[in-house]
């Protein structure tokens, strides 16, 4: 299959790339959200630690 064929997908490009595009977007979003959640958890831990040592 040539690269031109790859992008056009015999006219079904909207459906094929719409599917894979959204799927990959979802996975990327999930990874971003999980990393963000970890950052927040660690940040809250540090806030707690600072509050303790501040006494």
């Amino acid at each position, binding site marked *: *299959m040539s690269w031109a064929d*790859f992008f056009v*997908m*015999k*006219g*079904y490009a909207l*459906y*094929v790339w*719409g*599917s*894979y595009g*959204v*799927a990959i977007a*979802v*996975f990327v979003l*999930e*990874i971003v959200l*999980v*990393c963000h*959640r*970890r950052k*927040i*958890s*660690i940040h*809250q*831990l*540090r806030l*707690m*630690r600072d509050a303790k040592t501040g006494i």
Partner: protein
Amino acid sequence: MTINWFKYSAPSSFYGLAGKLIPWFAWPAGVLFCVGLYIGFFVAPTDAVQSEAYRIIFIHVPASILSMIIYIVMAGYAALGLIFNTRLSSMMATALAPTGALLAFVSLWTGALWGKPTWGAWWVWDARLTSELILLFLYLGFISLQASIDDPRRADRAGALLAIVGSVNVPIIYFSVQWWNTLHQGSTIKLSGTSMHIAMQQAMFAMFMALWLYVIAVVLMRVRSIILERERNTQWVTELKEYQQ
């Protein structure tokens, strides 16, 4: 040498283990994903009936199957947490839910986009797609219930009960939807012919494994955050590198 099978059932020891395991799942997932997509797009031939649109199945089918497996695993962990009172089991259930829900969504979205060119409608009330929609509702119910309860132990147990009731209901729901569907339509989603070209099978398998490994990696990451959130008042957390900066 006695093996302590339950060594990693404590959040404190599982946290470290999970952290070490994540790359072992994440990297192979990425590689298999590329391999699967390559085979699926460049090696597998064009389908006689559905032309290029069929290639959506390489993401649709693994997502669907995994969304169902994840629900069962989630209910299993939740049940373990309820019966044995183990916090980590419940944390795993909570960690699995968002991933399962997202995969159910991907399954529905790709299913709709597959349905439009193939059967002419954006939403085909196929028995399996409809059951998938109900599965998404079950996930969202579980997540909402846990989000509404402040006490973590009550949230664990209530969620567990809901997940168990849900999994008992899933066969009933599936059967009733099948019944309803054959009365109204009678057609189910199938590929042309009963045998799949070998390259299609390979691509499907690679994508399925890739997605499975990805799910494990993501859930391990999420459960680590959950552990940090729930265990923040314990001694072992103060000894972590993240805590001490």
